[in-house]
């Protein structure tokens, strides 16, 4: 990975303490300009606190943070003029209509009324909200609400856009719309810092990911690098006879040298193919395992190879499951 000369965001040893909790505990980040940077972590990991400090909403208790070279404390106004924030806490006024909200923010950014109206109308159109322009935001659906929030953040095209959990609570279709919007915004040159607890979201959008847990960065890299650090992938197997599953688990554990998980489906198992010294590819090693299952007279109806999910990455990095997995 060639380090870009232009860093949009740079932090070193960033700390925020609430009472006895070190919400952010020495975070170092280097976000290349013009990319989507994912900050991944479970609830309470410190993602939102970190973003709030970068957006000048919270004062850091230690360390430094710069946005395009401007210190978030000493040059807060310079930072504010370059960043924009969308999160569940940085919201718009739901008593007002979508149009009024955008015109209000446009005026506050220095547009004269006609220019503010024009830009608001074009944004509402681009976000598919023209029909709802004159309705109170209170009545918007979850997906519309998230879109107007993002629209409000790009009234003045920001150099850095913070999206704090932009798809939490959205249905899959609305989530895909937000993803498409993020891709378009980045294509126009804005740097996006995206926090999420959905691992596939970071995988889909981000070119680099920092995994945060308990206020610390525990891993950083491209999605591919993070996956490589955990294992080559996994094999998912469906047996014909559920009674043979215990035997199959033993055979596969021996063949692949790793843990084999029993799935909820009584005939299915999933094994991680860990990286090892031998240069055999993941598919070759999976084939070996399948051959050994056949040798043990265990009938396999179906199998598939999967890339390691970021859930597995997280589990491997933190030794404790993400909340979604713990709840499952």
């Amino acid at each position, binding site marked *: 990975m060639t380090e870009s000369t232009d860093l949009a965001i740079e932090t070193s040893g960033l700390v925020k303490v609430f009472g006895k909790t070190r919400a952010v505990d020495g975070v170092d980040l280097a976000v290349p300009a013009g990319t989507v940077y994912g900050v991944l972590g479970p609830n309470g990991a410190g993602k939102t606190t970190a973003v709030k400090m970068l957006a000048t909403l919270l004062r850091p208790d230690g360390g430094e943070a710069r946005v395009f070279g401007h210190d978030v404390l000493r040059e807060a106004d310079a930072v504010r003029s370059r960043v924009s*924030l969308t999160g569940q806490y940085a919201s718009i006024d739901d008593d007002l209509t979508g149009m009024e909200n955008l015109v*209000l923010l446009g005026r506050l950014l220095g547009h004269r009324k006609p220019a503010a109206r024009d830009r608001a109308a074009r944004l509402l159109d*681009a976000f598919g909200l*023209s029909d*709802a322009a004159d309705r109170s935001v209170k009545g918007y659906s979850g997906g519309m609400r998230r879109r107007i929030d993002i629209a409000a953040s790009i009234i003045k095209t920001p150099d850095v856009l913070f999206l704090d959990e932009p798809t939490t609570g959205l249905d899959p279709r609305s989530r895909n719309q937000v993803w498409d919007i993020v891709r378009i915004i980045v294509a*126009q040159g804005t740097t996006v810092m995206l926090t999420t607890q959905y691992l596939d979201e970071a995988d889909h959008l981000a070119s680099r990911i920092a995994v945060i847990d308990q206020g610390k960065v525990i891993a950083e890299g491209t999605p591919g690098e993070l996956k490589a650090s955990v294992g080559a992938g996994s094999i998912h197997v469906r047996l014909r006879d559920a009674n043979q599953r215990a035997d199959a688990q033993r055979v596969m554990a021996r063949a692949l040298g790793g843990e084999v998980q029993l799935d909820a489906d009584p005939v299915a198992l999933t094994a991680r193919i860990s990286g090892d010294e031998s240069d055999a590819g993941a598919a070759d090693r999976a084939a070996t395992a399948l051959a050994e299952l056949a040798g043990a007279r265990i009938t396999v109806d179906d199998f598939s190879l999967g890339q390691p999910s970021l859930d597995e990455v997280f589990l491997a990095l933190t030794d404790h499951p993400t909340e979604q997995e713990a709840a499952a």
Partner: protein
Amino acid sequence: MSTATTSETRPSTSYTPAADSLGAVLASGEQPSRPSALSASVTFGWRAMLKIKHVPEQLFDVTAFPIMMTLMFTYLFGGALAGSTGDYLQFLLPGILVMSVVMITMYTGVGVNTDIEKGVFDRFRTLPIWRPAALVGAVLGDVFRYAMASTVILVLGLILGFRPGGGLAGVLTAVLLLMAFSFAFSWIWTMFGLLLRTEKSVMGVSMLVLFPMTFLSNVFVNPETMPGWLQAFVDVNPIAHLVAAVRGLMEGNPEAGEITWTLVSGGVILAVFGTLTMRLYNRK
């Protein structure tokens, strides 16, 4: 990016982000110059007006509440305290005007607290604007509400037989003084709005401060009938001085001392609580 081919007609679900239209808006994002402090504050005042337009019920407190206060106290105390309701109204109206408007100021704190709760202020705080603008604008919007309440009470008073000796000029000057003081006084509540965690606690504290400050004054009776210790409180109560000043202006014999007292105390309140408010706003 495929076009939506489903039969969905609701805009929320059939929308597909289009790179060309969205990209065009982003590319045309010319950077306007930073708005002046005044322009930003006025824009926030405009927001307050829009909120009144969308939620007109919130005007209840500046219409029904003052009418109720005026009628209730005129007819409750009038006969007993002044011999007739007509005479009492002449004394009471300037006082009840001050009391109603000062009581309404507490909604400033409630509004600030709600904005924080909903996250609206956090968006404003990331904008490169004059920092106090959001709060100044909110208070300016509230001053409009105070003016409405004053109008309602004065019209009702005139209907009931209140005859100000100071004429139109005296009444207008009195109302302006009241607006100026209430603007300053509102900053106590912006501070509590930022300081306290819930809307209910803001209301609770406001009541705790406002009830003694308005009742323990010269609004209803002449303080000379009160015990000495209470008179001592009334003497330093800025609301009592405001009432005396407003009463003097409306009667046509303005008292320079009371007016000065009111302006100075308003200035001190604004300086102290305005500073505390901005400190909390920046720290939050």
